């Protein structure tokens, strides 16, 4: 399929357009917002628990920080966590799946046994245990931890796809032209899984953002910087919901739901656009 046609088919899909617009909107807000609204999110010198007002469009939190500044900074950090964790999981998943499928035999059996072991681990629990081992945790460390626990299902699917694709005639034709397995994997097999990989990446990013929020919520997230997860942690420890500080918890919730939902929507739309006619050319 040629590129212009791919774009036009995607743009004709309502789910894709909705998903990508929401995601890009959040991304732009996160990227440009802090520049346009240069308030220090860690500055606690404002009055506590102030409802929205002209100086603080989203009010302040319980300890006197500007909520909008926090949210703006949190969006970018959370997307960063998601992206980083997504890349890590994608890299491990594709590598493990591809190597298992291509090498076969003992390598395959060993890698799959390992993958299944990781898959069967109660991931969140393990994540909590590992996180608890570190006194201070950078955003990157948390992203890395999420990444290295969330790849197994991807590895299994990639392996399956590779196994079926490597029996395709065009792979044999590449072998007959003297191509080696590495170049066949990169240029014959991976491009044919491109939509699947894009879908998985969107889901991994969404999952990682939610997972960061989850472990931060119980206080085991990053110990520095502002992420959406950390905002939730403060919301929870300061009983913001009970205290009626809606300007604090409501926008944060809306933003995180918007990010996750938009990514899932993008993933679903990719499936809809490409899968029914994957073979049709």
């Amino acid at each position: 399929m040629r590129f212009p046609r791919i774009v036009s088919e995607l743009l004709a899909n309502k789910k894709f357009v909705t998903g990508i617009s929401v995601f890009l909107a959040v991304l732009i807000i996160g990227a440009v917002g802090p520049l346009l609204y240069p308030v220090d999110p860690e500055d606690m010198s404002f009055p506590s628990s102030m409802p929205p007002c002209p100086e603080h469009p989203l009010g302040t939190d319980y300890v006197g920080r500007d909520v909008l500044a926090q949210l703006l900074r949190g969006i970018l950090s959370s997307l960063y966590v998601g992206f980083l964790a997504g890349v890590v999981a994608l890299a491990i998943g594709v590598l493990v799946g591809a190597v298992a499928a291509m090498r076969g035999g003992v390598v395959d059996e060993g890698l799959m046994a390992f993958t299944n072991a990781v898959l069967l681990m109660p991931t969140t629990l393990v994540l909590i245990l590992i996180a608890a081992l570190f006194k201070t945790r950078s955003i990157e460390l948390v992203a890395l931890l999420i990444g290295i626990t969330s790849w197994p299902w991807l590895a299994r699917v990639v392996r399956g796809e590779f196994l079926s694709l490597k029996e395709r005639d065009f792979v044999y034709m590449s072998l007959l032209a003297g191509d080696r397995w590495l170049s066949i994997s990169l240029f014959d097999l991976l491009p044919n899984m491109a939509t699947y990989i894009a879908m998985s990446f969107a889901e991994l990013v969404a999952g990682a953002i939610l997972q960061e929020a989850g472990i931060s919520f119980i206080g085991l997230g990053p110990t520095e910087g502002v992420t959406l997860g950390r905002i939730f942690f403060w919301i929870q420890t300061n009983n913001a919901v009970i205290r009626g500080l809606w300007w604090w918890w409501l926008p944060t919730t809306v933003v995180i739901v918007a990010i996750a939902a938009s990514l899932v929507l993008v993933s679903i739309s990719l499936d809809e656009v490409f899968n029914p006619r994957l073979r049709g050319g």
Partner: protein
Amino acid sequence: MELPEPLLRVENLSKVFVVGLFTRRRIDAVKGVSFTIGRREIVSLVGESGSGKTTTAKIILRLEKPTSGRVLFEGRDVWRDLRSREDILWYRRSVQGVMQDPYGAFNPFYRVDRVFKQMFKLLPKDMDDEERWGLVEKALIEVGLNPRYVLGKYPHELSGGERQRVMIARALLVEPKLLIADEPVSMLDATLRSGILKLLMKLRDERGLSILFITHDMGLAYYVSDRILVMYRGELVEEGHPDELIESPRHPYTKRLISDIPLLYRKWSDI
């Protein structure tokens, strides 16, 4: 002068597949198959689906490893004697293949040109790109295609017959000595088939190409080949000159096969 050694010698070739995760089952896809292919010869390997003919082809093409037995090309064991990358490339230059499915043989992601570009590493190193594309155009013209029409197109923009011709042109680019054609026309309509078959015969006559023509269709084998091998459940059951084989088959399987083939000039008496 004819060399004493045939171009290709297959000796006692066997392939066992082990399938199933818990109940490991052995499937004998190929059982002790031996035959030779001489120079300037079209040899057909005829069998129904599951007879092991495609597995045999893949082993000869070095796409599937045999469980036991040998494949000797110009006296070299292609599974044991080809060690270096140079050896492998030599074999790829000497033996090429055309697959059954003219749709699946192309990666839908790329333009048709890619299948030729991939072959460039098999061409002499001192050749520049202009000369290489010149060869591509020559090969396309030889198989009856217009290079300007074909190059730059995506596979789905070509018909099945055109794609199969592109596949043959691709194989011819390196001037192989042996072409393994696995059901090259079975997915094409009768009127598109004839052109491809004629082309294969022309290549034998004009270039001295040897061809292993793999098919389930005895009619095609009878028409194009110098010799026919019949395969049944992994074994080679009969070998012979086409006319002899059709007129007086010896093996019970061949006998039944030939009596069950619907013919044009003779009507079954037992229906």
